[in-house]
């Protein structure tokens, strides 16, 4: 049975385009133009994944409220935020609404689909328990590619899909500097340096929350970032 994706987006043209694109990939898609109709429909039957625009019509932060409502119904429902405003990214992280990823609207459809696929993969891995689990270990860091799970000193670090790929790109070659462009390519996002910087900052914050002495994620000014190798 096809997975059901709900799109909540006030801009009809964008919504239809996204619906069409996702349908092309075999998903069952329902679009909603405002918070109330979405909430009413989604309460009856939860979809498998929700894509929410932050600004819904006149409600500048209607998407956040919707996310909170949905999260209260299901802890595991994958949620992707879409936003036109860059500043929203920081708001989202500040609110810790539990979204699984957030993307700006200039993302291409391929990238969007890649995100959706990745999220479903993670959900599957979590519920089904994949057999041939590929596990990367970098000292205290345990990195499950299949499950898209990361833990530090056996404490789970809740990373979004984008963040997960960024870390993945960095730890593949510890000690080597990855430029922002490389990181962007690896994480399948097309954003500017500034956004990469704030992503890295958020990742660092999440690790620091697990371990106050975390200092592996190193900024090489002017160049990019690197994962400091384990002290021998």
């Amino acid at each position: 049975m096809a997975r059901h994706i709900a799109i909540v987006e006030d801009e009809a043209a964008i919504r239809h385009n996204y619906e069409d694109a996702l349908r092309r990939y075999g998903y069952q898609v329902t679009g909603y133009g405002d918070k109330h109709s979405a909430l009413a429909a989604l309460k009856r039957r939860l979809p498998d994944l929700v894509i929410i625009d932050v600004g819904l019509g006149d409600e500048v932060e209607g998407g956040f409220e919707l996310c909170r409502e949905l999260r209260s119904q299901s802890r595991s429902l994958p949620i992707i935020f879409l936003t036109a405003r860059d500043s929203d990214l920081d708001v989202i992280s500040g609110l810790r609404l539990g979204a699984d990823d957030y993307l700006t609207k200039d993302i291409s459809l391929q990238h969007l689909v890649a995100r959706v696929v990745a999220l479903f993969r993670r959900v599957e891995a979590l519920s089904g328990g994949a057999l041939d689990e590929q596990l990367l270990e970098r000292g205290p860091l345990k990195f499950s590619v299949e499950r898209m799970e990361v833990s530090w000193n056996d404490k789970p670090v809740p990373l979004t899909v984008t963040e997960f790929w960024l870390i993945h790109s960095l730890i593949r070659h510890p000690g080597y500097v990855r430029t922002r462009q490389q990181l962007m390519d690896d994480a399948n996002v097309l954003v500017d340096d500034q956004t990469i910087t704030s992503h890295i900052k958020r990742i660092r914050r999440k690790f620091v929350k697990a371990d106050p002495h975390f200092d592996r994620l190193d900024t090489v000014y002017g160049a990019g970032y690197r994962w400091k190798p384990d002290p021998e």
Partner: protein
Amino acid sequence: MKLRTKLVALSLLTLLLPWSAWKLLQELERFLRESQQDALLASARAMASAIPMEFSSRLLFLPENYVPLWALQEQPALDGYNDDWPGTGQGQEFVSADGDLLVQLLAGNHGGQLFVLFDVEDRGSNRSTSIDHPADSIVLFARSPRGLFSFTISPMAPGPIQLHSDRENSGQIEGYWLERENGYRVELALPSSVSNTDISFQVQSKSGTSGEAARVAGPLADFDQPSWISLEAGWPGLSRWLDRSEIESARTWLIDREAWVLADSRLDPASEGNPGTQRTTWLQRLLYRLVAGSRTTLLENWPAVPVRLDGDAIKRVLAGEEVISWTQDLDTAVVWNTVAAPVELQGEIHGAIVVQSTSDGLLLVTNRALGRLLFTTLAITFGLAAGLWYFASSLSRRVRKLSNAVSQAMQDSAAPETLPLRDDRDELGELARNNQKLLRAVADYNKYLETLASKLSHELKTPLAITRSSLENLSSKGLDGESKQFLERAQEGVDRQFAIVRAMSEASRLEASIAVAEWETLDLGKLIRNCVEAYRSVHAGRTLLAQLPEGETPLKCAPDLLAQALDKLVDNAISLSGENDEVTVGLSCKETHYELFVRNTGSHLPGELQERLFDSLVSLRERPGTVPHLGLGLYIVRLVAAVHDGQVSARNLPAGRGVEFLISIPV
């Protein structure tokens, strides 16, 4: 000219006050003067026409030839000196034919005895007194009811004289012969009674040894028919009359046609003090001369007891004119007002009344008035000037303060709310308030410009997303080759538009990231070195130099932001210069701040807009590049510098060596 100087110059106008006061005082003084002289002249006129009959008839029938006989206060010492005689140098004059022999005759009486003084000046001969042949002699005739006497005074030597008349029983006279320079003086005491005596004399001067009279002077030309000189005794009655009719503090004389003084109202000159004894300071006298200068001549000093009046005024009054004159004694500051009215009897002028009045009061009144006026007006002037100076100073200080604040606000975009004088109620306050409005409008406009880009980018993002997602959907429909080509071109265009939109919102995202920037203390030099190495790998093929100081350069900063600013400056330098130009990134340590600079050769800043270079949406690029340029890069640099309390500047390096952008950050 500054405001202050202008106002003080204006205050000099108040100097017109003392000037007009001075003019006014001159008027006042003239008025006082005129009233005084008119009163004086009127009384002189009245006196001239009211001379009592007994005196007027005497005046009518004055003898042809006469010498006034002075009532001497003391008996003169017979010593040949004339200092105990009044009217020295004013006696009747007799001159020889050639004019070289000059005789002055004075006569006086005291205690019933007659005194005569001959003052002889002999300029003609080389005088020498010879004992054998006396060169000079005086022949004197005296006629009185007692008879006719004649004396010949021809002493062998100067000294006391005692001689008898040429005739028998004529009595004897005593005298004194005193030699003086160019002449001699003979003082005689005649025995005759005072009244009704006429005299005649001849002064002879013999030059050489011939024994003949070379030059003679005197009325006695013919010894047989002498022409007599009457000795007119003073007219004490008239003097008393004058004294009675005298005006206060005035002195009156009656003079005859020859200007001899016939009567003097001051009968006893010694008893009255000098009217001008009141001394005045030089300043007061100077002030008075300031007021009255042009109308008062300095005093021609008349002797205390004049025998004969002279001077221009006397000549004019004896010609029948009424005369007024003002004189001033510089030492005593006494002002003399002299008026003279002719005495007309039977249609002819027979003399004149001369009235002289002293006016201490006039001087004092004007002096005091002028002094006070000058003091007051000068004080007012200075007070006014000081007041205006203060006012102008405070005014110009306020204006300067306001103008400084305005230019400060324009430079640093400081808040216009900080303008001074906003609460003042005068025009300057209004100006400040209007300036504040203007600055606020400018600041709002700047703010609008700064946010315009991010607002625009936000608004553009949604339609762009629609376009892009539509194109992507379209591309998944099996299109033919040509349509695919168009689609690719359209997608390319959309990508570029997205790039533009991202660049536009960069500044606002930077502002957001400033708020969450992480601050740490690190070695600035090391940071720059890392960055330069990274730039070298990015811009391979370009010459990138680093100029870093020795040693540690610690700074508490937001390295992310600094690196970003440096990115912008280096991007700027790379894109503005040619392939073969050098780009230098450097750091220099000053005492109070670090100077982080990026230089590049091969470009030049245009003169205009240099100050606004770091503003939002200002681009000075002359050649359009392939990458869209919005003029936000240097604005971001400025924002980063401002976060570090630093400043940015740009300049052309001397000798056309390129351009330097500088960030100075305080330590």
